């Protein structure tokens, strides 16, 4: 069989760090990080997990309506998030708290969304991080169109262009929009990375409900490369995303990355996963924990002292406490916010409704 240059070379999982914390080399994905860089990655993982746990706790206490936890997916998110450049634009789902963190978006913004204070009202350009997208798959087309815009702008800087990266789940791969974005990206050779976090479940639907072959191979059918990376290995996620971004920036088009990982928590705080999956599966994945793994490596290689881990934990705890405090201090939005940012230009019907509602409310005062 003849395969063109765009198909993947093997079915192996790209891994640079074993679950036991042993460092592996991969010819296609060389990666050199300094000790501080490694420690930064570890700190990201720990902080992101702590913030996520805090959000879950806040939800249990009724402070948030719902929370989709990233537990277990920290490495996929931090690894890919830290591969991004300032000019890149992220198109997330609703679970990319770790990527948001890497982009400098204060997580309070995301808590506001799940508290029902707003719909996620940050400015995507400020952070290179678009609004959360709850309608499964829809954001992949936005990312692709954005990448087409990059092409039309021409590359920025010294021959290095921006790139778009679309995040989505294993479940999303069944949606028409995601496949259309593959068509578009391939046809226009758009500077985009498709980053699929295969966390094995779409609520209660196991992977085999969406596909009968490994997901990264989907890209073959559209004529661009697909690669499966160990999603619990932050180094591999970083290296693989970097390379895909590099391809995108240099006119070599889209890549699909399947980050093979696991959703350790429930789908969201309202879900009951005991209805559909076994605790044995969970236990198995616990052995591949992304945070423990990097810690083992740092310890084993002497790249971090015990105090570093203590400091990191303390730092994470402070961050979480600050997030909690800020969340509890959030004021409810005033009713005027119902009306005032729907349209940029005046809209007579809405203006009329607002006036009527204002005078209705005034009747109670």
């Amino acid at each position, binding site marked *: 069989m003849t395969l063109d240059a765009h198909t993947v070379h093997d079915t192996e999982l790209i891994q640079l760090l074993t679950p036991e914390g042993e460092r592996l080399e991969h010819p296609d994905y060389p990666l050199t990080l300094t000790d501080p860089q490694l420690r930064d990655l570890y700190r990201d993982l720990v902080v992101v997990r702590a913030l996520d746990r805090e959000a879950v706790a806040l939800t249990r206490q009724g402070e948030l309506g719902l929370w989709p936890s990233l537990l277990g997916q920290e490495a996929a998110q931090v690894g890919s998030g830290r591969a991004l450049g300032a000019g890149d634009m992220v198109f997330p789902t609703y679970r990319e708290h770790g990527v948001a963190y890497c982009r400098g978006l204060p997580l309070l913004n995301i808590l506001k969304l799940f508290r029902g204070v707003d719909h996620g009202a940050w400015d995507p350009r400020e952070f290179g991080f678009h609004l959360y997208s709850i309608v499964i798959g829809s954001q992949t087309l936005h990312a692709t169109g954005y990448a087409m815009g990059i092409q039309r702008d021409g590359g920025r800087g010294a021959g290095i262009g921006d790139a778009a990266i679309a995040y989505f789940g294993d479940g999303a791969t069944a*949606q028409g929009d995601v496949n259309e974005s593959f068509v578009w990206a391939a046809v226009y050779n758009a500077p985009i990375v498709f980053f699929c976090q295969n966390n094995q479940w779409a609520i209660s639907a196991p992977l085999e409900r969406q596909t009968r072959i490994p997901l990264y191979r989907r890209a073959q059918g559209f004529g661009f490369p697909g690669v499966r990376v160990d999603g619990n290995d932050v180094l591999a996620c970083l290296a693989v995303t970097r390379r895909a971004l590099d391809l995108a920036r240099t006119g070599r088009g889209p890549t699909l990355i399947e980050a093979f990982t696991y959703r350790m928590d429930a789908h969201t705080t309202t879900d009951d996963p005991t209805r559909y999956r076994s605790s044995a599966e969970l236990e198995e994945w616990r052995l591949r924990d992304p945070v423990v793994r990097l810690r083992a490596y740092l310890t084993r290689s002497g790249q971090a002292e015990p105090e570093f881990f203590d400091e990191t934990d303390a730092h994470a705890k402070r961050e979480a406490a600050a997030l909690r405090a800020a969340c509890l201090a959030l004021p409810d939005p005033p009713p005027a916010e*119902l009306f005032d940012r729907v349209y940029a230009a005046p809209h007579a019907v809405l203006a009329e409704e607002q006036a009527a509602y204002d005078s209705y409310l005034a009747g109670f005062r």
Partner: protein
Amino acid sequence: MNEAIETMPRPRSQTLTLAKALGQGLRKAMADDPKVVVMGEDVGRLGGVFRVTDGLQKEFGEDRVIDTPLAESGIVGTAIGLALRGYRPVCEIQFDGFVFPAADQIITQLAKMRMRSRGAVELPVVVRIPCGGGIGAVEHHSESPEAYFAHTAGLRVVACANPVDAYWMIQQAVACPDPVVFFEPKRRYWDKAQVDPADGGVPFDRAVVARPGTDATLLAYGPMVKTCLEAAQAAQEDGRSLEVVDLRSLSPLDTATVVESVRRTGRCVVVHEAPVFGGFGGELAARVTEHCFYHLEAPVLRVGGFATPYPPSRLEDHYLPDLDRILDAVDRSFSW
């Protein structure tokens, strides 16, 4: 089918939540007709995110309670195909806001196929949609898209408002040879009522007077029926007698029942959660006015959502019609 019923022990009346009543209705429909299949995201093993289909997969197997891939166009499109092979699929759309990827299959295919084939093809497909707000949900989980479907000829569009109707209407929808978009008021899923499996139910294309009254008519369906009943109760304490009509069916609309009521009361307020602008209330107001022109003491007034996307949940109490806004409209009608 009838034989099966005859040999079954006489079913007993039960207290059921609306969600459970739907589940029991589906169970009955599946037991009666082996061609009925249930399909959608998470409907099987999980029993649906609202547990409406809880237990059905265990009872009827994976071939009849189908956990599908995650794509709404795929769900409705393959349901059409199953119907073409003689099945009666009941699709679940997980939340109102996720019906739009299926809009094409519903509007250009499901609705039109019978007419296009001049009756050769029947598509007895039910599309169940949990709808409406008031549960503090995140965006896209509180929509009221009924107007899109009521305007789509070829579909029947119904909305249940209580457990008894839930139990009967879902069975009638499954039995109906036409495609039915079936709205379920998600904030009423946990409301309870006594359901008597022997009673038979009211035909699902009829409106009913949910509460008789003499001074004004409130028209509502789905989640707003209960709110209107509460408003009528509050109004009575103020000495005003409001009649509440539960439309139950939007398409067809039971114009006769509505008109009879408004002619009697002379005033009418329409209530729905969807934005008033361009909403189904416009049809109701136009139609009522045409039929009751000389009986109306005031124009038909509409209470509903604003011309904005559904707001974040901390603002939804402002957006959703409540007792005060309904009674304010009633007051405006009286002081017209």
